[in-house]
């Protein structure tokens, strides 16, 4: 029962290890709740895509302006590590999809397991990113704590970029894009941990798996964006 004597709709749990779900009071049916949240989430994903859209626009703009810089800059990245990371993310997208599937079929243990695997993927991804960043830092490419002049951060220790105009430009774009993407990976991993917590309490089952579904969508988006970033940055066209 909720306010004003309205009845709340309760979805029963399919087994003792699960808990029932109460539909939010302002919805008339579970279907309405599910559809509303899903539509809202898709819209949110659209804003995320547009946010990255701005960055991609900047990428293409400067790629057009300084093609040589971008070509040479791209060669400084380790495409093998990038490829490994791409594989890791693709695999984690698959484990996430399996996690959603398990939640839909009320397989509590499998849900938790697949979610952990996805988190593991995220951790490997970030670990490899860390290794890459560290190498870039040693080459003097990392824009951190610089002064007003670009020379304060763009040291280019091995003088590889000295013959192209505005050598720092590629790295500025590279670090902005991958850092913001990395932030999304971290947020995604945090959300999956939250799902794991809920799943171990038995909140997700065939009758109610909405949060797992949405976090899954989010994770696929993170993956999708990387699939664009990888060829653009590591294999500069």
């Amino acid at each position: 029962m909720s306010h004003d004597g309205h009845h709340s709709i309760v979805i029963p749990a399919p087994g003792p290890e699960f808990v029932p779900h109460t539909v939010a009071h302002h919805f008339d049916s579970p279907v309405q709740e599910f559809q509303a949240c899903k539509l809202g989430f898709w819209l949110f994903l659209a804003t995320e895509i547009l946010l990255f859209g701005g960055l991609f626009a900047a990428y293409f703009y400067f790629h057009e302006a300084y093609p040589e810089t971008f070509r040479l800059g791209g060669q400084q990245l380790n495409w093998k590590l990038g490829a490994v990371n791409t594989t890791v993310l693709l695999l984690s997208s698959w484990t996430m999809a399996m996690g959603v599937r398990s939640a839909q079929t009320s397989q509590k243990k499998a849900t938790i397991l697949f979610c952990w695997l996805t988190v593991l993927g995220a951790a490997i991804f970030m670990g490899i990113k860390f290794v890459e960043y560290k190498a870039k830092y040693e080459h003097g490419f990392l824009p951190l704590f610089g002064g007003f002049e670009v020379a304060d951060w763009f040291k280019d220790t091995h003088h590889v970029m000295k013959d192209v105009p505005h050598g720092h430009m590629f790295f500025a774009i590279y670090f902005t894009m991958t850092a913001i993407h990395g932030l999304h990976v971290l947020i995604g991993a945090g959300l999956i941990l939250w799902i794991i917590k809920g799943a171990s309490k038995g909140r997700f089952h065939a009758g109610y798996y909405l949060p797992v579904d949405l976090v899954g969508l989010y994770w696929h988006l993170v993956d999708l964006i990387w699939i664009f970033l990888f060829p653009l940055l590591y294999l500069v066209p």
Partner: protein
Amino acid sequence: MTTHTPHVDVHSGAHTGTTNYLNNTSGFMSWAGTLDHKRIGLMYLIGVSMAFLAGGIFALLVRLHLWSPDGALFTNEAYNQIFTLHGAFMVFLFVIPAIPASLGNMVLPLMLGAKDVALPRLNLLSFYLWVTGAALAMYSILAGGFDTGWTFYAPYSLYTNQAVISIGLGIFILGFSSIFTGLNFIVTTHKLRAPGLTWFRMPLFVWAIYATSILQVLATPVLGITVALVALERTYHIGIFDPRLGGDPVLFEHFFWFYSHPAVYIMVLPAFGIISECVSVHSRKPLFGYKMIAFSSLAIAIISFLVWGHHMFTSGQSTYAMFAFSFLTFFVAIPTAIKEFSWVATVWKGSIDLNSPMLYTLAFLIIFAIGGLTGVILGVLNVDIHLHDTYYVVAHFHYVMMGSISLAFFAGLHHWWPKMFGVMYNESLAKLACAIIFIGFNATFIPQFIMGSRGMPRRYAEYAAEYQPFHQASTIGAMILGCGVALMFGYLLASLFAGKKAMQNQWGGVTLDWMTPTPPPLENFHQTPVWRGEVYDYSTLDLRSTQTPVS
């Protein structure tokens, strides 16, 4: 059913007791933690009104300073900060959230026959994001202010020695507040319509908010990434917008206007929605060209993504870009022209009640014609070369943002005031204030058109003496305008304490918002309403409800 019963099954509940959303619970947390769209709308209303008054006080300071050519009051640095604050407060804290977040929140679920918006917690989050953004704006003032103009053009915004990062963060957060509100309304409109309320039976206010929401969701992230890049530039000097580092300031302009042009329609479409409601209810006549008005909102929303370059005609774009942007700018005027003519046709042969919401509506129709048509002049390529960045542009956008949108907001405020609070303000004072505002407004901005066409540049702390008469006329006008606004807020507040009881259906509206008890109860309707007839069918109006005071 007799003609006087609405074709809707609602238990109007006029006699079912006195609890409503205002008094069903009390205490600080019952407001601060509320998930009720009406309370959130009300809190927004207070917030945006404060932002408007603050922005208005900055405006008055601007006008006072410009009394004399050497600048009457401030140092140049201080003047630059004040007009920036004025623009930033008015745009980001007032006019973008004003109508959707306050009146939209209040009325949209009522009009749809829903118990709440689809995602009430997200709604509360939007509100607190707004509050955080406002707090960051205040913090930036205390931290030394910012003097970049509301457009934050690089590279000046990268070099200036002021609190640009904190206000940038504030705008980023305000952006997400706006995105979440829009997202929520789209979902609500799709999923929570009452049974029988098909798309073409929705009130036009809902259509307008729906089109606005699409823009909010799709355009605002680009603003977010733009201010984030400016903040990155200022901290790490990555060089994307800084010409010294190989970046391009014109790219910043593209990013900024890609958001900020659609943003002007984010501001104006909800105002169109209010005008559609008021024109119909106060003329007691179905809207002329309902479908055209609904579709033109969508057309505007789509085309407005393609015209941003008209703010950059002097920045040295390619001639092809100029061609396309100018062409599409004219195209966006056509759906707007259709709306304007349809409203006028609705008034014609209506049963016109000259009450205060209607007076504000008529003022809107007149002022918006001027504001929009001067926008069309600015869209002409060679003319804009002369007028760009002069007071002509300043006058244009005040005609739309102050004269049209703010007046529409006032119209909506007066229109739904009795619904929201169950009390009526003093009608005579309301009419007087409307007249003062109308006169003061035109006195402020007509001189600006004239001096702008003669070359007076904007953002000038000091100016050539020959423009002084216009500036002085404008300053006097602003004082009159200020008195009108102060009077309006005065009697509105007074009505909360000493107002007469409003009627159940004060104006005789036939949309669902007028069919709940006044003020509405917690979940809006005692039972989910079922909509049967057509929209704006005044033959269903129960005239008794316009004569029954709220209990």
